[in-house]
């Protein structure tokens, strides 16, 4: 069998974190390979090495049987690899034709030739693309932009196409159109890697499926010889019992209730689609879902940083829709979100720990001056309690190592004494000890009667720590389960959209029996 791509023993680490460990992967010529893995499994890093953005620490890459080194996006392009990213790289003001033209090599070096247009039109026709070459990108819908990106790489002569979550922004019909295109490309001899989480799509379009988990390569199966359940098991693995405390305490009435919430993301697609859930005091509700299922938008909406399209949010009986972030904070809802780059939201990188600590309550001191003295004391308290490693309280936050940055963030949120704490990826990239420190802090808050929404990546952790877990897939609620009464596989199936138990057994998940909504207000 001839292979278009062979990856042998590829490893890549970023500091202490091993993103890819000895990966062995192959893509046969003329096949469609699905790449499956949870967030943090290492698939994006792996693909970035193929597209020349990163270079492997060790291991070799073979294209068409020849060993190669890919040092830049240009090298990758020359080898015939074309990547269609999730975030488009288009010049908004230019037309489709102009965007493609920028990266084309050869023909019509100086003046725009008619041959270029013809070649693009031919390519488009060959694959059945319906695209208006003179349309400005700023006027295009999301699916049109994606079509343009695919056409672009084809025009650059790519024989190997990598698509990163292409169906995330498409409707059902558009997905079918895309799949027809992929099949045509396969017919023409192209080899395709498609990164996706939707198992039904994997079953529909791929020839083989490769699975990554926590940086390791698990294996490749032939699609015809497997099913969704098996794939889910491969993806999430067996449950590991962790030693995380889960104190059982008496829960209160729902502190935060969400009904019918619908939110759009920055690109205009629906991020959260009519979901219902609630959080009781003294309870940790986990949120499980593939990255990009709408978690970020959900957190932002509750914190008042993002407008919602529809729906209701009630905290302590009062609606918080439309409230400013400041007011929501005063109301008692606190949010800490650790983005991938860790310094994006919530912290001012050049300012000291002290200055970041008072970000939300600096105004409370009387008079004109900021009370840095007590701020420093608070900062020191947090540093001691959370064992943050730092030269001093005045160290600029951006000099701290990743884990410590997260501790500062969480420490600050807890400090303001909220009764609803939303924390997203609080242990992202942390070592075991630091992670456990965080779990203990959360449990202590829980014992105080705080309701906690825990958006996480590690299912084992969530099954140990959280009382209940709600699962979202592409913005939709797939079910809310009790940690003691569920399995990792069940959650995995819900995460990939295969299983939906919201309305199982006559009850509706996400709606509390003692809800503050009356029947008219809170339509299920």
């Amino acid at each position: 069998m001839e292979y278009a791509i062979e990856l042998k023993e590829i490893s890549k680490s970023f500091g202490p974190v091993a993103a890819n460990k000895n990966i062995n992967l192959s893509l046969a010529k003329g096949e469609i390979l699905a790449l499956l893995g949870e967030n943090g499994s290492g698939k994006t890093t792996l693909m970035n090495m193929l597209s020349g953005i990163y270079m492997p620490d060790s291991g070799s890459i073979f294209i068409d049987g020849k060993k190669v080194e890919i040092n830049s996006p240009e090298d990758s392009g020359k080898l015939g690899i074309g990547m269609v990213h999730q975030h488009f790289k288009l010049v908004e003001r230019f037309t489709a034709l102009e965007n493609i033209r920028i990266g084309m090599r050869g023909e019509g070096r100086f003046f725009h030739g008619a041959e270029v247009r013809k070649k693009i039109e031919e390519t488009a026709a060959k694959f059945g693309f319906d695209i208006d070459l003179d349309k400005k990108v700023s006027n295009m819908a999301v699916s049109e932009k994606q079509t343009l990106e695919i056409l672009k790489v084809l025009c650059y002569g790519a024989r190997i196409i990598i698509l990163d979550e292409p169906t995330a922004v498409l409707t059902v019909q558009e997905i079918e159109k895309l799949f027809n295109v992929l099949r045509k490309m396969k017919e023409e001899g192209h080899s395709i890697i498609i990164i996706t989480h939707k198992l039904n799509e994997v079953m529909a379009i791929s020839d083989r499926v490769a699975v990554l988990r926590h940086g390791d390569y698990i294996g490749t199966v032939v699609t015809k010889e497997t099913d969704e359940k098996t794939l889910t098991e491969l993806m999430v693995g067996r449950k590991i019992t962790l030693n995380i405390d889960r104190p059982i305490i008496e829960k209160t009435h729902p502190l935060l209730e969400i009904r019918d919430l619908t939110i759009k993301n920055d690109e205009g697609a629906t991020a959260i689609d009519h979901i219902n859930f609630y959080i009781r005091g003294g309870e940790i509700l986990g949120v499980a879902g593939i990255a990009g299922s709408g978690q970020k938008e959900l957190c932002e909406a509750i914190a008042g940083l993002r407008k919602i399209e529809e729906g209701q949010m009630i905290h302590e009986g009062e609606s918080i829709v439309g409230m400013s972030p400041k007011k929501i904070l005063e109301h008692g809802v606190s949010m800490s979100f650790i983005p991938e780059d860790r310094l994006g939201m919530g912290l001012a990188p050049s300012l000291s720990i002290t200055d970041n600590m008072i970000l939300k309550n600096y105004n409370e001191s009387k008079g004109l001056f900021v009370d840095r003295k007590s701020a420093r004391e608070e900062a020191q308290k947090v540093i001691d309690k959370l064992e943050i490693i730092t030269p001093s309280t005045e160290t600029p936050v951006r000099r701290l190592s990743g884990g410590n940055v997260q501790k500062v963030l969480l420490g600050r949120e807890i400090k303001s004494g909220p009764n609803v704490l939303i924390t997203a990826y609080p242990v992202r990239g942390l070592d075991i000890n630091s992670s456990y420190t965080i779990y203990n802090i959360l449990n202590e808050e829980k014992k105080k009667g705080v309701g906690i929404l825990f958006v996480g990546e590690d299912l084992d952790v969530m099954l140990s720590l959280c009382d209940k877990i709600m699962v979202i897939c592409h913005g939709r609620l797939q079910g809310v389960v009790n940690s003691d009464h569920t399995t990792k596989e069940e959650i995995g199936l819900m995460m990939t959209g295969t299983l939906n138990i919201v309305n199982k057994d006559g009850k509706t998940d996400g709606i509390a029996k003692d809800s503050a909504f009356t029947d008219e207000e809170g339509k299920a």
Partner: protein
Amino acid sequence: MLDVLTLFLFNIIVYNIPLLYGTTGEIMIEKSGSLNLGVEGTMAIGAVAGYLVGARCDNLFIACVVSFIASGLVGLLFSFLTVTLQANQNVTGLTITTFGVAFYYFVGNALSNSPEGWPKLSGTRLDAQSQAIHIPGLSDIPFIGKAFFSHGILVYAGILIAILMWLYFKKTVPGLKLRAIGENPAAADSLGVNVALYKYAHIIVGSGIMGLGGLYMGLNMGGTFEGSNCWINGYGWISIALVIFANWSPAKAILGTFLFGFFNTLRVQNAALAYAFPNALGWLTKIPSHFFSALPFIITLIVLITSSLTAKGKSGEPQAIGRNYYREDR
């Protein structure tokens, strides 16, 4: 009477070709995503370098070449500082302006106080008379010929450069790539465009073009060195304003500069016109000249504000202008 009108039209061209050079040069630089506030200084250096070498060699062509190279070097400095060293564009540009104008004074003073003195132009091949080219047929048309077709080569070159630049941006591939850099350097970079190289090249060429405008001013409007007033006299700043007014299009720049040229010449010749046509244009002398001088800036300010109030899409402003691009920041 007709003479006054002819002279008026003639002067519109003379006064405004430098603006055309400055504006088109700056358009080329801004399209690459850099806001270059150093136009005034660049033009001053191009002017003084070209003038001095040209006067010594008594050769207009050499004057142009030296001028282009000198201001091109200033452009190289700007590129090095902002593209490679990632320095703040505003500060760098302003320093180049202060530096350039100071350099002009430095050289001027040094020469004026030296035994040989400041080289004069009259009688050389560089003075206004000698520059004028006689185009058989066109120059002889009575009224229009004298007004529009008796200029020096730099005038026609300036218009030609503007037209060529317009073609370059509209019809060529490198022009497209440059525009992409000005709009979204990350996208251009990911498509294999060498962002740094393109920026360097276009900043240098754009600066060279500006320099020629400065040279023209020195040859036609200066001639002597005055310790108190730089030749360029604010034309660099007006050029920056005109880029906006012309919506970053070299073709519109031709129109724009002549519109402002019209007002500029009006300012200078209003007395003569009012005298020649007392009934029709007598009121011209009542308008303060300062108003005409301020007009380019007032109009541009209005254009700036209104274009940001209305639909974004119509503005030609390159989206990424003013920001430095560094790949690792992705």
